[in-house]
């Protein structure tokens, strides 16, 4: 049956008497225009020496002067190339296949390059590439104006590469002669060529130790695999094969084991022939993965061990499970057989062993132990040993590459102490904490300026190639290794010459063109050795936590924090909390009540929260606290990646450093204490903004059983068409129309379909939209005032099963029950952009016809016509229009990428940079559809279905967003538009949108 749930975005909305919610519903612009401030002050007006006549005189004169001055236009120069490179045509974009491998994110990507400068990252779909928000945003990090521009020594003076070579050459030789160890500390680069160069370096300098360090470690899983299979690697998981997924604290839609699982996962989540996967999730923080699960169970971190042990005991040992939810999960696993998988994010070797043993026991086809995942290789024990050796003076030199241990190490003070005893060199693109603590900070190019090879999975290689001339005086780590080992070769030549030895399935040029190649893996099946599972089981089963527990996590925005100076990522709302520019302690409602923590909305809709002091293992930090529905009672969450100071613009220095609490590289810390302190914190939280609450039929969802019930007519059951009264008859809203329909059957008619089932809320589309459409970053203060500029937002709705029209309950009981449900609500993510209504309410109210309709279906916004009355935004039922309150470009008040010459290089030259006082909104990427059409015209052929894309649909790795021409009856979008699951937002108001949504189907029945 049609779901009759109540949806809410913020707990505040559950309070019937909240005036703020009402204000936000009624008013598009929350803040009043402050005219009274300066006109109402009669006294100062009277005291003013400027009379009205004088004022008018000045106005008249300055208008005349400005008019005269504007008659003289500026002289613009046009400077052509001296010698134009053959493959560059000014005005035409080139695409290059390359690879990101920054130690945290790994992906095969395409880079859009205009006149020699990369402006956009797209997934290389031919090479199975998918991009998350950070990968999408990484192009802006290339143009970070605070990058390390040239090498420098400890006193901050710059040093030339020739001097670096001689000085370091001497020093390293001395250390070699003294017999002391040289440590190379790198992140996971998964590069076979870098690895062999490090080995070569080791041969030349003798006592060299390569330590791999992941800032957010997966060491436990690596240890477990090593114990079982002898090599240090991770198994791969193909969630598209899974019918049952049971996750115990594994945020695999986030960054668990390197991420990149969402496309496989989403394939199983769309009901196909009546089937979809079933996902049970045990976790403490509300994560993206938990939010997408069918069954989400709130479990404190320490109890996750018990759950996992229970699962193991039930499946492997055949015992009966104790926990009710585990019993259900076991039933699901048994039903799916080899199509089930159990994954865990518990940072404990034994727990990881148990999960692997369960998968082996059921013969899971989802887990593949022979094709290994190389994107996390860090070794905690090695890192701990290195820090100890450095302190004790055993290490002569430490060479750090692309890693920021001074910031990310939990015991960074020890590390800094150790640096004093050693010669320290850091290769870095960023002028970060480590670069400022070492003897030599060597500037390396960004990955878009570099060469490289990456082996993300065993036998599957990717090529990294530069897409721009190096912006600064930089040199790659690998080039330095070659130089220091006395080779004259360049790294590019080295890659090329070593390519032959890999046994690739294509030529080097072809591999470079495609961005990837495969090579036969040397060994196929790995054999499991005997591991004492009973010991592992008893260790996990007996694990206990005490007191409050802290669960550290990474956000989809900042991740491990290496891109913290990227304004796109800072402004990307967290998919769960919808908060930007911050990290905070997430606490459950029950704990908040106990500790006296409060969150409240102030008059303009901004969210404020109490400050708390968090103490763990002797470290205490004062943090804001955010009450998070779905947070397990007794647990708290805190995100990594914030609190960086070095090489950061002032605006970006947000949040607090959570690595201080990351003791022993364990993401869960028990026995923490939290105390309310005085003061309050202002969040920039968008969850109450642009709300459509109270307007009905926004989110539609049903259950798999209902969906599969053939006796039901979707239109009258789970996907009801709204009814309106017309001539005293109840008729379907779609049949009634105020306007005449325009015939759109000739030419193209664009539609965008969004599947609520496969949308995981990852936010890649939001950043892609920023990059494609020159969307301005407005900063924390403006976001707080509801002046965010996101053309595309992902609304997150919580829902409870308590019905609004539940007649059995009294009003007070009903709300009490709703409050209760908000402790562990179900979650829906819904991307909302301009719906491009065929009968758009915004168009009819524009006094200057600045927003009009195209025959291809787009609602077009003409910035140069707009005079900024904002009527359109007031009249938009979907709240998708954004007003430029200020000039965001060339404005020191908004010191983001549009305010510096380097950052402006990322702007898309085909899209206008909007000025102050105009309205803007999603254009359905008309510049992209126009370009596809023009390309087809030039080639004299019809446009192929897959050629029509928008930035968001292109960035979507789960296939939730599909864009195309519905006049092409063969197209995917045509099928989706006529699918039984499709519906329009707020259909009853008759706007006839060109964006369709697909009803969310939950696999909730057991």
């Amino acid at each position: 049956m049609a779901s009759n749930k109540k949806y809410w975005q913020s707990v505040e909305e559950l309070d019937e008497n909240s005036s703020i919610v009402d204000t936000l519903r009624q008013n598009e612009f929350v803040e009043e225009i402050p005219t009274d401030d300066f006109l109402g002050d009669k006294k100062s007006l009277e005291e003013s020496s400027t009379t009205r006549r004088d004022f008018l005189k000045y106005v008249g004169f300055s208008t005349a002067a400005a008019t005269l001055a504007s008659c003289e236009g500026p002289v613009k120069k046009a400077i052509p190339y001296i010698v134009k490179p053959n493959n560059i045509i000014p005005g035409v974009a080139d695409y290059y296949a390359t690879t990101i491998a920054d130690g945290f994110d790994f992906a095969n990507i395409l880079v859009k390059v205009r006149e020699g400068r990369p402006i956009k990252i797209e997934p290389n779909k031919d090479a199975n590439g998918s991009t998350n928000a950070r990968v999408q945003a990484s192009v802006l990090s290339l143009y970070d104006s605070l990058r390390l521009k040239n090498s420098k020594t400890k006193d901050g003076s710059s040093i030339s590469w020739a001097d670096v070579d001689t000085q370091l050459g001497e020093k390293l030789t001395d250390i070699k002669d003294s017999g002391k160890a040289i440590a190379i500390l790198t992140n996971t680069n998964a590069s076979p060529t870098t690895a062999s160069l490090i080995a070569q370096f080791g041969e030349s300098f003798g006592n060299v130790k390569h330590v791999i360090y992941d800032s957010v470690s997966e060491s436990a899983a690596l240890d477990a695999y090593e114990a079982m299979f002898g090599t240090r690697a991770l198994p791969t998981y193909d969630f598209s094969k899974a019918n049952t997924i049971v996750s115990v604290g594994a945020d695999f839609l986030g960054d668990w084991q390197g991420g990149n699982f969402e496309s496989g996962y989403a394939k199983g989540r769309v009901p196909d022939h009546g089937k979809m996967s079933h996902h049970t999730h045990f976790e403490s923080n509300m994560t993206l993965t938990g939010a997408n699960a069918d069954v989400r169970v709130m479990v404190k971190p320490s109890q996750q061990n018990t759950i996992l042990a229970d699962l193991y005991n039930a499946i492997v040992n055949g015992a009966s499970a104790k926990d009710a939810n585990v019993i259900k999960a076991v039933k699901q696993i048994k039903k799916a057989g080899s199509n089930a998988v159990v994954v865990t994010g518990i940072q404990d070797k034994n727990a990881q062993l148990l999960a692997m043993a369960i998968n082996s026991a059921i013969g899971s086809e989802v887990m593949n132990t022979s094709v290994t995942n190389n994107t996390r290789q860090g070794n905690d024990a090695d890192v701990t040993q290195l820090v100890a050796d450095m302190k004790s003076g055993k290490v002569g030199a430490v060479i750090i590459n692309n890693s920021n241990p001074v910031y990310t190490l939990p015991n960074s003070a020890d590390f800094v102490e150790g640096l004093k005893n050693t010669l320290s060199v850091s290769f870095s693109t960023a002028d970060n904490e480590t670069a400022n603590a070492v003897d030599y900070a060597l500037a390396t190019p960004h990955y878009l300026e570099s060469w490289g090879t990456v082996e993300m999975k065993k036998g599957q290689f990717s090529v990294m190639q530069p897409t721009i001339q190096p912006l600064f005086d930089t040199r790659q780590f690998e080039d330095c290794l070659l130089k220091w080992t006395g080779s004259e070769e360049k790294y590019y030549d080295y890659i090329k010459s070593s390519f032959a030895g890999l046994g690739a399935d294509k030529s080097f040029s072809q591999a470079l063109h495609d961005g990837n190649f495969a090579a036969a893996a040397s060994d196929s099946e790995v054999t499991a050795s005997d591991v004492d599972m009973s010991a592992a089981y008893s260790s996990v089963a007996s694990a206990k936590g005490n007191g409050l527990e802290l669960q550290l996590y990474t956000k989809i925005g900042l991740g491990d924090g290496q891109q913290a100076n990227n304004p796109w990522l800072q402004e990307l709302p967290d998919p769960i909390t919808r908060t930007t520019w911050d990290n905070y302690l997430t606490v459950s409602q029950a704990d908040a009540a106990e500790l006296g923590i409060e969150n409240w909305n102030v008059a303009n809709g901004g969210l404020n929260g109490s400050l708390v002091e968090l103490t763990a293992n002797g470290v205490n930090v004062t943090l804001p606290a955010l009450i998070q529905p779905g947070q397990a009672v007794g647990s708290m969450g805190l995100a990594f990646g914030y609190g960086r100071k070095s090489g950061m613009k002032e605006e970006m220095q947000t949040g607090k450093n959570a690595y201080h609490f990351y003791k022993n590289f364990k993401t869960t810390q028990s026995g923490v204490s939290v105390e309310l302190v005085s003061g309050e914190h202002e969040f920039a939280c968008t969850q109450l903004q642009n709300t459509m609450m109270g307007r009905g039929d926004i989110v539609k969802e049903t259950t798999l059983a209902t969906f599969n019930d053939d006796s039901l007519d979707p239109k009258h059951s789970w996907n009801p068409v709204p009814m309106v009264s017309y001539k005293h008859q109840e008729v379907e809203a779609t049949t009634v129309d105020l306007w005449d329909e325009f015939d759109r059957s000739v030419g193209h008619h664009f539609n965008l379909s969004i599947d609520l089932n496969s949308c995981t809320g990852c936010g890649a589309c939001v950043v892609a939209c920023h990059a494609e459409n020159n969307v301005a970053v407005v900063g924390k203060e403006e976001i707080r005032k509801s002046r965010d500029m996101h053309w595309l937002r992902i609304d997150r709705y919580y829902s409870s099963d308590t019905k609004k029209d539940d007649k059995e309950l009294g009003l007070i009981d009903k709300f009490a029950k709703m409050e209760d449900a908000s402790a562990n609500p179900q979650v829906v993510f819904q991307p909302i952009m301009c719906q491009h209504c065929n009968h758009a309410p915004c168009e009819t109210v524009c006094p200057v016809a600045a927003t009009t309709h195209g025959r291809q279906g787009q609602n077009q916004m003409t910035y140069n016509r707009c005079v900024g009355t904002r009527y359109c935004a007031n009249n938009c039922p979907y709240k998708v229009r954004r007003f430029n309150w200020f000039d965001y470009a060339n404005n020191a008040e908004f010191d983001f990428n549009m305010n510096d010459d380097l950052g402006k290089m990322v702007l898309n030259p085909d899209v206008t940079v909007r000025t102050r006082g105009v309205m803007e909104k999603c254009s359905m990427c008309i510049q992209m559809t126009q370009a596809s059409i023009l390309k087809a015209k030039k080639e004299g052929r019809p446009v192929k279905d897959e050629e029509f894309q928008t930035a968001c649909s292109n960035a979507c790795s789960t296939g939730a967003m599909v864009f195309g021409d519905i006049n092409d009856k063969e197209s995917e979008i045509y099928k989706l538009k006529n699918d039984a699951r499709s519906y329009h937002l707020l259909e009853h108001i008759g706007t006839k949108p060109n964006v369709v949504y697909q009803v969310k189907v939950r696999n909730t029945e057991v």
Partner: protein
Amino acid sequence: MYQTRKKQLFISMKSVKQHNLISRLTLSTIALLFLFTLNLSAQGDAKNGKKLFNSNCAACHKLDKDLVGPALGGITEKRENAWLKAWIKDNAAFQKVDADAKEAAAYSPTAMNAFPQFSDQDIDDILEYTKPQEPVITAGGPVQTFAAPVKQDNTLLYILGAIMVVMLLMLFNLYRTINELKGDAPKSRSFSEQANGVWEAFKRNKFLHFLMVIFFLLMTAYFAFGWMSQVGVDQGYQPIQPIEFSHKIHAGDNKIDCQYCHSAAKHSKSSGIPSANVCMNCHMNISEVADDTKIGNHGKDILDKEIQKLYDAVGWDPEAAGGGAYTGETKPIEWVRIHNLPDFAYFNHSQHVNVAGQKCQKCHGPVEEMDELYQYAPLTMDWCISCHRETEVDMTENGYYKKIHEQLAKKYGVEKVTVAEMGGMECGKCHY
């Protein structure tokens, strides 16, 4: 109403030289005519020789200067006629039998083409042309400096005149009134008295006053609107460029295709200003202009220096051994951009040039006649739209339009559609 000329008053750009096209054209026509008469007096053989020389030899040889090949002026004094004929017809074969020829071939690593198609007479003609000639005094000398008739803009004068007339009338009336008050006005009702009567009647008629005011306001608004809509319209903008490049010489006289240099126009939104290496395709061998070349008042002496500016930019040393060499020192050319669309307007050359097959001249005017380029079209939205309204889309050739064409024909029975009817007038097609 307000056209080009008017505009130049308002848009007096700092770096813009005021050019008067008509005077310029008159001058150059006279100069050309003059030169043409002089040429008539040249010898018949040498004339044919010159023609042959220019079409066959000039790529590598000049009369007075070494190029890829040696200077050929006075070559007949150095070599025998028969030797030259043998060399020109097939120098490679000649080298095998003649030691002198072998030596001559060592001049340059680039082998000279064979010209078996030349008759002996042809070669004699060419050689006649290469003979040193008596210096001909061209009519150049001091250039005629008579002032060409300059078309004045008289609108202001007319307005001032009208005001003067009204003032005079008023003065006359005042004078009369004073006289009448003094009592020494003439008693008889003269013509002026009658006119005065009309004037008095007019003065009393409030309705007429009202009409006058309305009329005056409407006129003011009309002219003010016209004037204001010219702000930012730079039609006729003709800035001085860093190199005195003549489109007339290149596209007009030498008939070089526009897209040979502006090769991006068919691929890209931008037509592309040719990179300097494209210029060097020809100018590697053409280091000076023809003797009779003129751009405005500038003759060969100045224009050769302009080509030198190109060489400075690309770092080409024409004097270097072997007919010139690149020095590696480059200096980008900073052209002044003439056609400036605002940032919010999207225009794509390839759509118009490649898909629609429009001639460049449609928007850029008779470029092949312009020595110094100016903005021919107003580039206003009105101008864009009126063309989109009139231009029909040719749907027969292009595979993209095939389906749309069929649909239109079937649905509406329409055979021809204009760009505007295809959606070429929607705001979002050019503003995004």
